[in-house]
């Protein structure tokens, strides 16, 4: 696939094999986006960490700032897959959501 660019602006895309290719190439050159997947600390739940992701891609250059915000979160209530952990995360228009169910720590569980 060939992308003709002027600075950071796409002029034309050639050689892509499906319609998504042109859209992706343009996005990737002009404003690359990534889905952030990471884990947040928990307290009083079954596992020490809850895996999370943004429910849509966010600008690539915001990933490290997003991680700083993730590190300030401690989750204390049980969640289901898809539960929103932080709404409109960092004002980027994407929610941070849980990617698994996580219940309260049972007294019998020793870890």
């Amino acid at each position: 696939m060939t992308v003709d660019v002027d600075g950071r602006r796409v002029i034309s895309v050639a050689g892509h094999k499906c319609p998504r290719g042109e859209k992706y190439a343009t996005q990737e050159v002009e404003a690359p986006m990534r889905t952030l997947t990471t884990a947040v600390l928990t307290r009083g739940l079954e596992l020490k960490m809850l895996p999370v992701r943004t429910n849509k891609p966010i600008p690539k250059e915001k990933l490290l700032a997003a991680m700083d915000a993730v590190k300030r979160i401690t989750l204390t209530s049980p969640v289901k897959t898809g539960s929103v952990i932080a709404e409109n995360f960092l004002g980027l228009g994407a929610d941070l959501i849980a990617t698994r169910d996580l219940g309260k720590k049972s007294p019998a569980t020793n870890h």
Partner: protein
Amino acid sequence: MTKRELVIVGGGPAGMAAALAAKESGVRDILLLERDQHLGGILNQCIHPGFGLHRFKAELTGPEYADRFIKMVKDSPEIQVSLRSFVVKLTGDKKISYLKPGALEEIEAGAIILATGCRERTREMIPIPGSRPAGIYPAGLAQKMINMEGWIPGKEAVIVGSGDIGLIMARRMVLEGMKVKAVIEIQKTSRGLVRNVVQCLEDYGIPLYLSHKITKIYGANRVEKVGVVEVDENFNEKPGTGFELSCDTVLISVGLIPENELLEMAGAAIDRVTNTPVGPEVNLTSIPGIFACGNAAKVYDLVDWVSRDSEKAGKMAAEYLGGKAL
């Protein structure tokens, strides 16, 4: 000793797909044994996206992919799940013993499916000279530490091997505030997917040294640095190309090896090179009625294919049980 129709060892993607397929094929008494306290297996620590594109036509994270199967298993009264259950013995006539909190259980099974997955190849399986300081981890162990236990393994890392787990961990460590100095790959091309080279290394400016190898790990108590050298097409060191990288952590990402000790204990034939069962086709072992699926049968790249092939194992076990009953 109690009798069960079908016992499946391992509650990861392979074991769950096999259990569900066996149920669909008419098996009504299925016991699924899992040593961890949750179903899902290795998917639980694979929190990055990229799973399920073939199976569900959606890009899921590992836990999300597992979640879809866990819900189907929980909705199946034919499948009894026993967590924190560790199999310690398997015989050729399908007697299985397992430990669970407070008990040793013994079962005579009509059929058995082993879905025990892989373990990681370690530093000891590739020649890296040097001392044995702290700070050297198989990449998947580091993944579990960071993603599930919330521990950061060090401050500055070098990754040996460019398999997908190593690439994914490069990005993961950078996001968690570590510095990743380099990925060292002895082959001429990366072993991982192109998208992982782009999104895990290039996005973060992490150098990938192809046709390079680690010559030595230095350090007394903790890793201090590694020696790196370029190699030619025969993997011989090129004189004058050596350099050193300071780091306190080395991740080893050099592949997986199937975990088949139970099958071996039962007296089945094992291929000594790949550590996989020897059988007439995938999912079969040399013992009738004992099946293997998922990464225990062969090392897969994509979980989607693990699910697909493990369903065949569940169906095979159902057919075996049906035929035997006749």
